[in-house]
């Protein structure tokens, strides 16, 4: 499992958040950061595909040390 932080533009409401059940969504300023552990690259790309499908603007993606 690897820990990731994914920043997207705008605040995600309940509907949008339900598209990322394994991640925690927290507003930071005008944006939202999705954080959580993903098993592998396939899972990560799955999340990115979801972000693309929902027309969200991807701002930043990084791997962070596990807490």
């Amino acid at each position, binding site marked *: 499992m690897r820990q990731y932080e994914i920043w*997207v*533009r*705008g*605040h*995600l*409401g*309940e*509907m*949008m958040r*339900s*598209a990322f059940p394994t991640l925690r969504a927290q*507003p930071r300023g*005008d944006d939202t950061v999705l954080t959580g552990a993903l098993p592998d690259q396939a899972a990560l790309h799955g999340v990115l595909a979801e972000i*693309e*499908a*929902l*027309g*969200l*603007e991807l701002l930043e993606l990084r791997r962070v040390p596990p807490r």
Partner: protein
Amino acid sequence: MSRPELRERLGSARVTVLSALPGSGKTVLLRSWIAEADLADRAASVTVSHDEQDPQQFWLAVLDALRQTVPGSALVGQLTAAPDLDGWAIVERLLKDLAPLDEPLWLVVDDLHELGSDQARRQLELLLMRAPDELRFVLASRRDVRLGLHRLRLEGELAEIRADDLRFSLTEARELLSTAGVELAEPTLALLYERTEGWAAGLRLAALSLAGHPDPERFAAEFSGTERTVSEYLLAEVLERQSEQVRRLLLRTSLLEQVNGELADLLTGGSGGERVLHDLEDANAFIVPMDAERSWFRYHRLFVDLLRLQLRRTASSEVTELHERAATWFARQGLPVEAVRHAQAAQDWGLAARLLADHWPGLYLDGQATIVHALLAGFPAEARAADAELAALTAADELARGSLAAAERSLGLAESASASVPGERRGQALVLLAVIRLLVARQRGNPSAVAEEARRLQAVAETPDAVRPGLGQELRALALVSLGITEFWATRPEGPQHLDQGVALARRIGRPYLEFSGLAYQAIGTMPWSLTRAAERGRLAIELAQRHGWTEEMPIGYACAARAAVLALQGCPEEAEGWAQRAERSIKADAEPAAELAVRYIRGLVELSRGRFADALAAFRAAERLAGRLVAPHLLVPSTRAHLSYSLVRLGDTERAEQVLAGLSEHDRDRGETGVAAAVLWLARDDPRAATVALTPVLDGSAPVVRRSWLVEAFVLEAIARDALSDPGAAERAMQRALELAEPDNILTPFVLNPAPGLLGRQARGRTAHAALIAGILDLLPGNSPVPPSAGPRPPVEPLSDSEVRVLRYLPTYLSAPEIAAELSVSTSTVKTHLRNLYGKLGVHSRAEAVGRARAVSLLAPSAQRR
């Protein structure tokens, strides 16, 4: 909504790429561009299916769309789905079809990012690079797709439209809202515009929310005050403002890839769904009609993804039941792929498995193997192993993907699970299992296992109530044809019975690919009994192939080979040549050795019939070498060896001919073909007595022959030998018998290879029954003028395409090219292209010459019309 600068750019280069995230307005722009530039007749629009992995399905959709355009309908040939069509071959053919294109034609591909097949993307790249200048491309995608576009960019042939270009200007935003009946004060509009940043989906959602809104100012203020994402905030607003009926319909039908009124009512449990769908379309509410009748619709991708999220959040307990209902509906409508997908989504594995098993033969014949693979992957592994039918289908899928070991493992699972198949499905499951076992055995190449599996299949397939009426018939037809193809290399006294039944059933249930492949094998398989019927079946197979565009598919090689062999035996080597070449092209060296042997053998037959004995010898030698690689006895092996000896005799090498005959196995030595070859050898050595001894078992039937032409030849040789032995009565009787046997199929070559003009002349004077046959033979003998007059040094006629034949039929009418074009509903330039090709193939330079030549080679009436 007109956006002139964008539309301008869409037409500005040979290739235009639209690359932007969902909701940027790509699809809307394409639609309005096609409508406003009046391109409906010359723009072929294709929307790539969700996660398309199959090149064949993609290219069939492209061809279909191109054929619906005016320029495309005249140029692009029909291609019907079939198992294993090759995407590369389709693109090559498309390039050839489109080469004469002399007016603009657009290929518009939307959702290109869904094209998951790397092969298909490379094939598209090939088309982009090699297409004629008049073919223009517009490719819309959510993300940049790798297509080697940088080369086009360097050459100035690429125009790009990206997210920033698609963004609406303030003026355009005002226009969009006002089209939706929303007029806003300038500050309100500015606020809204700033918040959406000109994003198309945002503006359109806003327009939907604002239509008839009591307080647009407050709406805009609240909207711009929230940090929520634009799409989520506005979708909630839009849903909020719909009636309960509409909201319910939108949420529930979001599960579907496509929706119509009936299905909508089924999922909502209400009525009036169709009207709601039409209202939504009129309001521009992210719904697009899929047909001209506005019966089927699909939602905008972004919209449907959001709706699905909302449905799962608000009515998650109902989702399973909604999928169940959809599965049942699609199954009833005969749409198995959708039905299986919904049954799987409902986790009703039993229903999904039954649906897939019932429809597998049809899906397989429609070339949907990739989709079947995906559907199989949608089952849990335990379900695949525990269900006999699913395990059998898994085996077929693994076999198609080249994994024989895995296929055999799955067959084992299917075998052990078959005992638990319920009674009403058992017969059908056993047939399915037997068909797939036979396929696996064939792949393994073990002839005794093939024979064993064929017997098993025959036992289950011939049980009359094994398959249920309806869908089971597809399985049954597939079983019969597979069985027939397996049996066909072994000569059977009853003839290709299973093929006959399979072809008839395939025709009755409308499965042309099965009918085509069955007919092609039948063409060769019928030769031992009747050349006329063999030629007829070959002709039917080739006609079917031309109608459906399967002219490159392997089975057509057998049909061409049969036609070549028949024509060679009927004394028409030049006409045979074209078909022999086609057979050689279709049946490549990597085919099974038995197929290659047949092609080499027929090449030898063609060369023999035109007296090129050295070439014939080389071909029979090549066939003979292949015979050594066969494990099972083969229909053509004794003929090959006999002809090998026979060619050596003709070349004056009686020593080696004798060695060939002496080296035969006991089984081959007792064949009639060997007796004929020995008689030829003895006659060449001036020993007619020995010739008659060799012929005796052939003439009395104790030494069997593979087809009647050998028997004809035996009687001709007998006549020559008896004549040499000064027994004119016996000679005359033998020749009489030879003519009787030759008459029904017009077999000429044995008489030409063993010329006996004196004997034939006496026959002609004595009786008139075979006058035409004798005249035909005498015409072909040296010293007489050959028929047709153009035979000989002329190049062979390359087979004509369907369209060329259609044009050819008008040549004797003296209609002008434009008049022919009008008759055929094609353009004059198309007719001229066909004429050019026709003249080239016939090797002529004028219309009169073309008619003469076509008549000489029977391409024109009367013989071309024979049925």
